[in-house]
């Protein structure tokens, strides 16, 4: 790792710079877009749509344990409104299903 050290460090710095750009660019660019009522509605709908786009493909491509766990999280979150219970029941359900199905 003598000559590699600088190489790996460069890779880390490249990733860090791009990640920082990703984190700040959207906020900066929104300065240039006038917030009309329609843009406002798009921004309002964005968080939910983004969470759905993260969740649903994962569920579709996942195993039975993933599907069962997400179902359990949905029920627990709806009934208890407790984040911790939602996470715990999802993990427990997925672990149980995977222990049985393999």
């Amino acid at each position: 790792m003598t000559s590699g050290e600088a190489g790996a460090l460069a890779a880390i710095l490249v990733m860090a710079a791009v990640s920082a750009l990703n984190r700040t660019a959207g906020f900066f660019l929104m300065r240039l877009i006038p917030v009309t009522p329609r843009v406002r509605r798009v921004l309002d709908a964005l968080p939910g749509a983004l969470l759905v786009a993260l969740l649903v493909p994962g569920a579709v491509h996942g195993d039975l344990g993933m599907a069962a766990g997400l179902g359990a999280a949905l029920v627990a979150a709806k009934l208890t409104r407790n984040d911790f219970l939602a996470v715990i029941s999802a993990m427990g359900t997925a672990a149980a299903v995977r222990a049985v199905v393999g």
Partner: protein
Amino acid sequence: MLMPRSASPAPGPSSSADHPKVTLTLAGCLEGARSIMPMMPGLAVFAMAFGAVAEQKGLSLAEASLSSALVFAGLAQMVALEGWSQHWSASALLALAFLTFTVNMRHVLMAAALRPWFAPLPAWQTYPSLLLLADNNWAAAMRYYTLGGRDAGFFVGSGFVTWSVWVAATALGHLAGGGVPDAKAVGIDLVVPAFFIAMLLPNWRGRREAVAWGVAAAVSVTVSFVLAGWWFIVVGALAGALAGGFVDDER
């Protein structure tokens, strides 16, 4: 741990009763830190898994920890490890930059969604705060905002806790090496999506969400089958949000 149903229940000294003022206070930081706690055990195991794999791929303890501290994006860090090497040519670095950008493109949208909330704050507060943006503290902060909270400290506090746990557990995982438990058998991969579900539900209002979420689900799933890589997240989210924007206000 349980967020109060009506966020910012006791408005701080700086908020006015009629229109809550956007602030960044220590009290907000503490509330955000508390709210993110349910995520932390699972996140710590994720970070340990990254540390363990990084060790196998030849990263030193310092490199693995530095990656978590500066990049602070688990998915991108994990994906990058698959092609990790000790020698990086210019074209390999360019490919790495592109990979990082596409995996983290969702952060562009997340930060854009924070604009209406953070816009009144000075730039020296917003931009450093945005560097703490991660999926779970963003999701928690958006729920807090939806329920009426306006203290940006919530985002900073939850982000700082996430960052600290992420970096510390990466180092632990690197030191533990192969001793890290099998994450899937105990359902660790469910932690983030389950937390997302808990964050998503309070966003439901009615027709606009039905349209936005339906379009986001259909488009993201379709894209995930058609296009390789991580485009499905951003394309699905944008399609859903745009569709939702065309549903006029019901009220």
